[in-house]
């Protein structure tokens, strides 16, 4: 599987998540939805242990993996805090959709990744498109 195929699978599944979050926000508060999302993550765990090398991993890798879950959760939590403090979803959601810009800068500076001109144009357009696609002038807050 190439990075592109894996990315398309991610886009499809996270796209469904976006729809479910819209639907869920009518039946649940954001805190409750976050809690039950974690329950969903836990339900997946038994299926993930089939080919596990967790016990053989260095401590550094374990810390990075756990930190990825923590930072992802803190991101959602920060957005909900912004909503509680009066942020409009039509502004805050497209703004947070620019988050891969942070990933991009870190990848270029820390990992030394380099992009061709065409790739740079594609990446910049993807960032802008992601923000524009998240724009909903009448969005319900806390979705």
């Amino acid at each position: 599987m190439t990075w592109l195929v894996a990315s398309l699978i991610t886009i499809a599944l996270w796209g469904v998540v976006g729809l479910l979050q819209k639907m869920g926000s009518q039946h649940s508060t954001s805190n409750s939805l976050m809690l039950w999302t974690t329950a969903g993550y836990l339900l997946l765990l038994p299926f993930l242990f089939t080919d596990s090398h967790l016990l053989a991993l260095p401590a550094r890798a374990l810390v990075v993996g756990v930190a990825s879950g923590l930072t992802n959760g803190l991101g959602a939590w920060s957005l909900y805090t912004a909503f509680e403090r009066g942020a409009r979803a039509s502004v805050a959601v497209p703004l947070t959709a620019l988050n891969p810009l942070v990933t991009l800068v870190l990848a270029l500076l820390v990992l030394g990744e380099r992009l061709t001109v065409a790739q740079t144009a594609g990446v910049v357009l993807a960032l802008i498109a992601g923000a524009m696609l998240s724009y909903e002038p009448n969005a319900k807050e806390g979705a």
Partner: protein
Amino acid sequence: MKPRLWHWLAPALMACLWWGLFGFLAKLGSADVNAYDMQVLFTVGTIPIAIYILIRRAGMRANNKGRLIGAVIGIFAGVGGIAYFAAMARGKASIVGPVTSLFPMVTVLLATTLLKERLNRVQMAGIVLALISAALLAT
């Protein structure tokens, strides 16, 4: 800057930073850890926040449909996460990060067909940009 603006803008910018950092850590971790194990570790990382929400017990309201939707979100987001870690292991974070952030395209298309929501002009323009971006990155 007006303090009221900063009051909500600060956590919104923090969300941006946390999620951007998530993408970076996903790339860093995927170099040593397979995608399934990354999802296990990711799940462990989400537990402290779940425990905090449980202890605080504030703003916790849901009906059974809401609870079910939450759990299904976790399953879809989790399997999507495995694919995301796999993409990060195989590609550059500077490309995989922005490309996977196009997932709202699927959301808006599903919302127009299933929830009968209407696409606004900004979203339509976003779809066009996303397609141009895909053409540039697929070559």
